[in-house]
Structures are given as structure tokens and as C-alpha cells.
């Protein structure tokens, strides 16, 4: 995808001639800051990340066990109006997601009403049979959602994916902001940027708000697969900033349907577990028997209502990409309104007509696994070789029900620092949406991922993507004194 033709978050469609209204100051700043200075700050940011150990591991890459995610110091900026629109859409969508999960593990009204075909839910590998009938406190299942958004024009935002299992990346939102405050303090004089550092506190409040009824002085912990996991830095960062214990499966035990944590003073009862391990590994007695990461008996404790799991098991059904294609109907069904944030046009390859279309247009489509994430197992038609397309065609024909297809979008670009000056690079955006007993909270910010390779549309860190800080601007005090 040639970046020059895409909508640019700074220049709009003017091809670097005229900044979009409200963004003139950023253009001036870029003009005033010499490239050498940008490079110096860039180096300094990466050195700091390395020293702090803000790293991730790439699976299947043994030489580089730990890498830092490349960080670009030119921020991506949302105006107050843009943010208002986005956050209203996000709140609506996440509310619908929770209502949907509550429904399908309960009465299944949406299936009975024929809005979503029953087989696509009930026969879905993400549908958690053992979870049926257990309603978590306040009916909240997906307490933390990371909704991936893309933009193609001034007013055109789309939801690309709903991450309702264990979305990651929020530590980068906070660490990137820390780096920006240190390296480019002048930008915060120019722009009224809304802070993001309240996230750990809001997350903590969310966790406590969903403690099992009757838990007195509840104790929350964060359950990590361990320090070799690719997102371990984030796990320790969040636990540390919330002041809760960071535990591994081996630190917990279940006795009489109650979860305990092993400490130097003996065992201590645990009430809420923010788990960053997948459903399949949670409890070897119920899910994968070979799981060394989980806790035997955990599901029994959950079903007995003695512990809250965040997110609840079974939420994967809501971020399955086959379900995604029904999200506009799901939103309308539960909220009674049209979806404020549209989906990307999606073809379900399980449907013969859609499959035929997809096979005929492989070179222009993006084809994804319905249950995939991290950019693995997908085809980006326009940048794939003939051989790759043919290999993919065979796989797709063999198991069409595992795939969906979407048009290749001209993702918006943001000026990005490169060796030879500023270049436009494609971005997406992942805000983090919290749902607790008192409703939905969204921190004004998120993770902007940027495809650093020229022409690339793949922003995943495992595939050579980087990150940027995302500024959400406060509304300037108007004549009515609105702040």
C-alpha cells in the first residue's frame, strides 16, 4: 500500500502541504526540531527501555530472546472531538460485548431470536462449555477489552478486532508517555494532553469492584505464565503499579473450592485473579491437561463463586472473527442503537458465496484466521508473493470455516522518524476499555502501533511493528468555561 495515498493523521489528504486544522503546532514542531535532535531523543528512549527491561520475546526466534519494541517519538494525536466520538462508540461496543457473553452463557436469547446462527456460537472452539451457568459478579465477563481501531479518512474509523481475552500493550501506553514527557517536554506545553497514568488505579478499582459477594477486604493478584512469557514485563509493571502480588500457577493452590496463595507466612486467601494466561491453560483438570501454568481446581472455585477471574473464562467467543462479522447486529440487539463504530466489511469464508469471492480476489484481500491473533496465519494479498497466495489458497480451500476475508484498507499514516528524515507509516490504535460494577471506564489514550517497514500494513510487534505515544487532547476552555 503506497503510504502517499493514504489519509495522514497530520497532513490529511493534502500531501504534506497543509496540516489538518488544529494540528498546525505539530507541523511547526517537526519543522523546528532538527533531525539530529530527533535521532538523539530516539536513541535515548530506546536506551531507557532497554535499561528498564521493557522487552518482549518473539516466539520462534531464539537468537533474540528479548527485544525492545521500537519506539517512535512523533506522537499520534486525537482531537477532543475525535476522542468523544471514539469513546462513545467504544463504550457502546463493549457494553454489547458483555451483554452478548452474558446471554450466550445464560438464556441464549440472541440465538433463539435468530440474530446470530446458533452453530457459529455453540460449535465454536472458543465457546466454553464448562462456563455455562456460572454468572460472574455483576454479569461482567470482559472486564478489560482492547479494541483495535483503524482509520481511513477524517471521519472514517473502523473496528478491526475486538480483543476480549487478555489484551496486552497497556504498559506501553504508560511507558511511552513517560518517555515523551522526559524527551519532548515542549510538546506538552504546546498541546493540552490528557494524562494516562491513572490506568493502574482504575484497573485496580475495577478488579476490587468485581470481587465475589461477601469477600471481606478482598485480595487481588495478577496471574502470569512466568517471566519467560513475551508480555511478562507488562505483567510485572501492572502488578507493581497496582500494588498487588504477581503470582504464577505454582504459587496458588485450591482447597475446598477456595484459592490460596503460598507466602512466607503461610497461605493467604485470594478473591480476584487478573489472569494473563489463556483459558486453555487455566486449569489442567478442566482444560488442557498438560498445562503447567494453571492451577488445578481453579475452575471449580470459579464456578462455586469463590473467586472472580478477570477476564472471565469463555470471553474468547466475543473476539472470534466469525462472531465479529455479526457485531453490528449484536450491538443493535443489546443496545437498541446502530453501532457508532462500524466494522470493516467482512466476508465469512464458511459461506460458499463469500468463499468463492475470496478465492477470486486473494491478491487484494486480507484473509485471517477466525481465532488467530498477533498477525500469525494471515495473508495480506497485495504484498504477498504468487507462491504465498497459492499456498494460502490450498489451506483456505481445505478449511474455509476457519477464515474471514476483509478488503485491504488504506490505513492512515503518521509521520515517523527514519534514517532519511520523516516518512509516513501506517498505524492502528488500541484503546483499553474497563468494565466493572460501576460501568465502563476508558482512559484517554491507548497504544498506537506503527508498521515501520515501508509499505507494510502489519503493525504487530511480533512482525516488526513499533509503537508511538497517542495524545488525546483536552477540550480548550471555551466561552462557556467548559474544561
Amino acid at each position, binding site marked *: 500500500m503506497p503510504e502517499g495515498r493514504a489519509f495522514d493523521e497530520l497532513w490529511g489528504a493534502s500531501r504534506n502541504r497543509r496540516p489538518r486544522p488544529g494540528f498546525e503546532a505539530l507541523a511547526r514542531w517537526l519543522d523546528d526540531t532538527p533531525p539530529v535532535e530527533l535521532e538523539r531523543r530516539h536513541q535515548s528512549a530506546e536506551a531507557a527501555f*532497554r*535499561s*528498564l*527491561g521493557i522487552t518482549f520475546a518473539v516466539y520462534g526466534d531464539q537468537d533474540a530472546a528479548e527485544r525492545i519494541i521500537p519506539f517512535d517519538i512523533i506522537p499520534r494525536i486525537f482531537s477532543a472531538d475525535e476522542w468523544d466520538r471514539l469513546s462513545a462508540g467504544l463504550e457502546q461496543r463493549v457494553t454489547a460485548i458483555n451483554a452478548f457473553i452474558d446471554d450466550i452463557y445464560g438464556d441464549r436469547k440472541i440465538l433463539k431470536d435468530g440474530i446470530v446462527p446458533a452453530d457459529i456460537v455453540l460449535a465454536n472452539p472458543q465457546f466454553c462449555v464448562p462456563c455455562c451457568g456460572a454468572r460472574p459478579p455483576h454479569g461482567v465477563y470482559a472486564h478489560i477489552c482492547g479494541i483495535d481501531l483503524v482509520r481511513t479518512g477524517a471521519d472514517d474509523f473502523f473496528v478491526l478486532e475486538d480483543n476480549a481475552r487478555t489484551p496486552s500493550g497497556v504498559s506501553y501506553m504508560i511507558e511511552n508517555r513517560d518517555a515523551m514527557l522526559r524527551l519532548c517536554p515542549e510538546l506538552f506545553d504546546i498541546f493540552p494532553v490528557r494524562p494516562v497514568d491513572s490506568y493502574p488505579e482504575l484497573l485496580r478499582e475495577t478488579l476490587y469492584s468485581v470481587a465475589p459477594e461477601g469477600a471481606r477486604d478482598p485480595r487481588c493478584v495478577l496471574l502470569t505464565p*512466568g*517471566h519467560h512469557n513475551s508480555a*511478562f514485563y507488562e505483567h*510485572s509493571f501492572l*502488578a*507493581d503499579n497496582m500494588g498487588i*502480588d*504477581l*503470582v*504464577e500457577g*505454582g*504459587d496458588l493452590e485450591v482447597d475446598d473450592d477456595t484459592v490460596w*496463595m*503460598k*507466602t*512466607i*507466612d*503461610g497461605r493467604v486467601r485470594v478473591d480476584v485473579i487478573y489472569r494473563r494466561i489463556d483459558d486453555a491453560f487455566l486449569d489442567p483438570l478442566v482444560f488442557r491437561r498438560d498445562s503447567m501454568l494453571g492451577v488445578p481446581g481453579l475452575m471449580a472455585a470459579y464456578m462455586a463463586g469463590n473467586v472472580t477471574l478477570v477476564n472471565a473464562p469463555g470471553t474468547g467467543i466475543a473476539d472470534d472473527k466469525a462472531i465479529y462479522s455479526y457485531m453490528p447486529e449484536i450491538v443493535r440487539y443489546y443496545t437498541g442503537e446502530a453501532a457508532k463504530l462500524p466494522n470493516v466489511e467482512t466476508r465469512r469464508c464458511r459461506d460458499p458465496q463469500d468463499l468463492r469471492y475470496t478465492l477470486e480476489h486473494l491478491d487484494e484481500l486480507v484473509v485471517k484466521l477466525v481465532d488467530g491473533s498477533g498477525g500469525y496465519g494471515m495473508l495480506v494479498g497485495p504484498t504477498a508473493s504468487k507462491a504465498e497466495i497459492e499456498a494460502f489458497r490450498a489451506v483456505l480451500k481445505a478449511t474455509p470455516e476457519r477464515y474471514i476475508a476483509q478488503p485491504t484498507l488504506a490505513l492512515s499514516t503518521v509521520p515517523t522518524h527514519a534514517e532519511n528524515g520523516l516518512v509516513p507509516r501506517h498505524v492502528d490504535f488500541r484503546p483499553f476499555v474497563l468494565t466493572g460494577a460501576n460501568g465502563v471506564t476508558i482512559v484517554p489514550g491507548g497504544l498506537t502501533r506503527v508498521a515501520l517497514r515501508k509499505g507494510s500494513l502489519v503493525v504487530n510487534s511480533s512482525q516488526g511493528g513499533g509503537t508511538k505515544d497517542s495524545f488525546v487532547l483536552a477540550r480548550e476552555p471555551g466561552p462557556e468555561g467548559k474544561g
Partner: protein
Amino acid sequence: MLSRTASSLYWIGRYMERAEFTTRLVEATIRLAALGGHAHVEQAWLSALSVVGAPPLDTGKEGYGARRYLTLSPDHSGSIKSCIGLARDNARAARTALTREVWEAINRAWLMIQNRTSPGSVQQTLNLVEELKAETRGFEGALARMLRSEGYWFMRLGSMIERGDATARLLDVKYYLLLPEGQAVGGKLDRDQWTTILDIVSAKTAYRHLYREGLKPWLVADMLIFRRELPRSLIWTAEQIVDLLGEFGHRSGRQGPADRQARQRLAKLDELEVRTVFRGGLHQWLQAYVRQNNALGEAIAGQFRFA
């Protein structure tokens, strides 16, 4: 605190102390080796290897093989590089219990050493040693500035157990193994070796302050075992462990088997004199001390449920 976290902290203390000790061992051995001819060089490195309990290996030209084994070998779990790697692994796992400063000190040491594979020439090894000494000082400084609570106590416990072990083994090797046949006790080589030991525990000048007489083996032993003024003596580490365990007891109001063992050990050291130790055999006594020290380490792990 989680028992697993306590274990990680304890092992951070042990591995960082081990890395530091081995660094000093390498430095002092280079100095010792420089004092004699070729056979002498080999002898010096073989003794260094036996201090860390390594099997004899081909020490190579200018002790290259031994220098590599002790500093950078990825196959030797006690090499400085392995120790720092293991300390960092534990530090990552216990990250939330560390201050940012302690983490950065360990991580910096690891970033410095992780890609090194060859110790190079003797001079290059000395340069590496200087860098390592700066890194371990950074760690000790960061540790000293930590809040005095469980996190600090466990790391200190680990380093004190490790230090007791290292000092005892160092003294044992010198006394039991080091002097080749045909060399006179009190001869030049003997003297150089005792000086080397003082170097390793950074106590060459301290010796002159504490003892008026010239270098005497039993006085070096006396200093390394019984002198509370020396922060690497056995009695000093034994006392530190009693105090650290006391802090835990003070916090929780409870004591356990490790407290009793540690206090008994200190009381025995207090009653002993260097003469008595030599009469029964210094080697036997040191061997027993190393065993006892290991048992205390296990008692600590048991008491805090990370055995």
C-alpha cells in the same frame, strides 16, 4: 510475600555475591600468576579452579582456558556470566519486589556481559574485571539504599550465606592444597599465596592494621574466621545472618529452626580460638563449616517455605 519471590530474592543475593567473589578471585589469580614462571601460572589457575570446586582443566596459555571458564563460559553454571544471567532471571521473576535501582544495576551488569564470549588477553581480562567490579559495586550500593524489609532481608541473607561459603573454601584451598611439594612453608611462594588471599577478600591493608606481625598463616586464618572488623570473615557473616533473621522475627513475632541454628553457630564461633581450630585440623574444621553453612541455607528455605 510469596514464597517463590522470597526464593528469587535469596538467589539474587547468592548469585551476585558469587559473581563478585569470582571476579576478585580472577583478579588476584592474575596477579599471583604474574609473579612466577610458566609452571607457576598453571599452578595459580588450578588453585583458583579448585576454590570454586571446578574439575582441573587445561588452563591453557596464560591461563586462558581457566580465565574463560571462570568469567564467560556459558557451560559453567558458576562462571561470572552465568551467575549474572541467573541473578537477572531471578530479578525478572521478582521484579515487583525490587527497587528500580536494584533491577537496573543487575540488568546493566547483564547487558555489559551478555554478548562477551572471550576474555581475550590477560590485560583484557583485567579490564573486564574492572568493569565487573564497578557493576557489582553498583548492585551493592543499590541494595544498601533499599527499604529495610523482606525484599532487602532475603537478598542479604542469600549474599551472607554465599559469602560464608566462599571465604571458608578460599581459606581451605590455600591451606590444604595450594603449596606444591618441595616448597617451604613460609617461603616466597607461600607468602605470595597468602597475600593473594588477602587481595581476594580486599584485606591486605586491613591485615596490617589488625596485626603487628608480618604475614603469618594462622593470623590470616584468625582474621578470615574470627575478626568481626572484616566484612568477609566467617564470624561477621554469621552475625549478619543472626541479625537478619532477627528482623524477620521482630516483624512476624515468630521464630523458627533457622534462627536457632544461626544463633548456635555464632555462639560456637564466639567460644572458639584459632589455636583450637588448628589443633583439630583447619581443613576438617572448614569442611564442617561449609556443610553447616549449607544446612543453614536449607533451614532458611524451609522456614520461609521455598525449600
